[in-house]
């Protein structure tokens, strides 16, 4: 009863096509485990991650369709991607993770070795620090998938680096750790030892199963709250050092050039941020009436404390409901009951994290960072997003 290849074309990516009966209560359904034992999404669900049109499709990114998502987690098939030379195919039985440098005993671990250690399971967002890079100067992309889609949330399972550190023995003065991927970009980033010992995971599980190929199969580094690029995928090596390595990704890229010509380096924390996903850009409200405004909020420095919503472009703020359980360095779903009177409005959300940090306006942010983004201060745009609502109900990305 699997769909036949002729009709398979009718189904969206990730789905199988089946004929639709007039009345599903009058004909038997598909048998249990007729799918071979691994299910797929409904043929009526079609949202996909969309690639940003960089010149080279192997170093590019695809964005999560936040406007079509519900809840707090990201479906594994829709987790955003950023690869620097494509997705490698790695046989886990041949994969090694070596840990060396300023350690007492350099070791190599098979995946089987790694899985023998105690593990922990945590939910965290990952956000690319380039999320929103098109939005500094003027509203550019139409949808929230475009403006904020380099954000996804998963349940991750893995071994704390602290556990591995006890195995190799750390030498005094080892203050940085280089993490290296086994993709063809052989991606490298330097991570402060303090972070590695506090909550870094060597993660091999995602949402209950093995981590997906696009997210680093068979193992990635997970650095809760840090910018996405540092969560090295396809992890093959950790080298303890007394200094950062000044890799290309932490000098040429992922640094923030200020207006005075100086660049900030190792800007690793993701600042608190929120965005309204409904209603959002390119949608159209059918008419005045009640709308359950909803969105996501997150912080790289702890839990989300509160979220406020404005319908007048930030003049007045109302508290939003928190619809899921706040956890450290994890998204929360929020909502706000809005009775639209049919007049033009500007919708905004603003979050505060448990450190007391308040998500800034774009004006506040560019006052500090300069307004030479996107070619200057490209990364870490966490400003309040504005969605303009016209009298005809159409929603557009605006700067307000």
């Amino acid at each position: 009863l699997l769909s036949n290849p002729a009709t398979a074309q009718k189904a969206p990516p990730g789905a199988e096509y089946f004929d639709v009966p007039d009345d599903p209560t009058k004909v038997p359904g598909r048998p249990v485990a007729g799918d071979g034992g691994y299910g797929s999404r409904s043929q009526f669900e079609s949202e996909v991650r969309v690639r940003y049109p960089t010149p080279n499709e192997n170093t590019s990114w695809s964005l999560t369709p936040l406007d079509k998502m519900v809840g707090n987690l990201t479906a594994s098939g829709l987790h955003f991607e950023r690869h620097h030379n494509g997705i490698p195919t790695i046989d886990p039985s041949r994969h090694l993770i070596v840990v060396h440098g300023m350690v007492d005993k350099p070791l190599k671990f098979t995946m089987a070795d790694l899985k023998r250690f105690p593990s922990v399971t945590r939910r965290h967002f990952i956000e690319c620090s380039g999320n929103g890079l098109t939005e500094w100067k003027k509203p550019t992309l139409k949808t929230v998938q475009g403006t904020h889609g380099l954000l996804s949330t998963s349940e991750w399972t893995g071994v704390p680096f602290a556990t591995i550190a006890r195995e190799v023995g750390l030498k005094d003065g080892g203050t940085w750790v280089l993490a290296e991927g086994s993709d063809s970009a052989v991606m490298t980033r330097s991570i402060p030892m303090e972070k590695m010992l506090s909550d870094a995971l060597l993660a091999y599980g995602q949402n209950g199963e093995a981590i997906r190929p696009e997210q680093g199969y068979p193992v990635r580094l997970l650095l809760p709250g840090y910018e996405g690029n540092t969560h090295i995928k396809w992890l093959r090596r950790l080298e303890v050092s007394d200094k950062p390595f000044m890799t290309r990704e932490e000098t040429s890229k992922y640094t923030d050039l200020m207006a005075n010509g100086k660049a900030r380096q190792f800007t690793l924390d993701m600042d608190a941020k929120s965005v309204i996903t409904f209603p959002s850009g390119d949608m159209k409200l059918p008419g005045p009436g009640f709308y359950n405004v909803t969105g996501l909020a997150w912080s790289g420095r702890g839990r989300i404390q509160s979220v406020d919503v404005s319908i007048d472009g930030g003049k007045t703020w109302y508290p939003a409901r928190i619809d899921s359980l706040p956890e450290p360095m994890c998204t929360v779903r929020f909502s706000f009951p809005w009775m639209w009177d049919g007049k033009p409005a500007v919708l905004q959300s603003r979050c505060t994290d448990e450190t007391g940090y308040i998500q800034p306006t774009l004006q506040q942010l560019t006052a500090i960072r300069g307004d030479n983004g996107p070619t200057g201060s490209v990364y870490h745009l966490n400003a309040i997003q504005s969605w303009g609502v016209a009298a005809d109900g159409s929603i557009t990305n605006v700067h307000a």
Partner: protein
Amino acid sequence: QVQSHYGFGTPATPQDLAKYFSIPADGRGLPPGSGTAANGAKLFADNCAACHGDKLQGNPTAGLGGDKLIGGRGTLATDAPVKTVESYWPYATTLFDYIKRAMPFTSPGTLSDDEVYSLVAYILSEAKIIKANETMDAKSLPKVAMPNRDGFEPDPRPELGLYR
């Protein structure tokens, strides 16, 4: 009942580690060998120019999209900063490390160390950071004075003005 060390994993021997590299600014781990801009020019034309341009100007061919590698000096504090190896990169060692690991894009990890030194020498010389006849090797490379060497500062965040 539990040991303080689990004992999983096996020792990584020097042979195991030989294939890995990562070169910090002091040049630690730079391999033997050397190269010159003259050799690099030919290698670049054959292996790199299709994507980075024969003038190193970047992205000449649709679908390939290599970065612009030179130019942009003096633009960093302007409204239209141009970030290249020449204008922005603080360390020449990074150039060696990155080309050796990731370039050429379609067949990374295939260049010899001499070839990488040569390509580094060529790019730095086209960028007028070194002279055309300087030899790049484990000793000279870390000493190259990059124009933006002092252009970076550690993360000053959180920005305290953003707290109520």
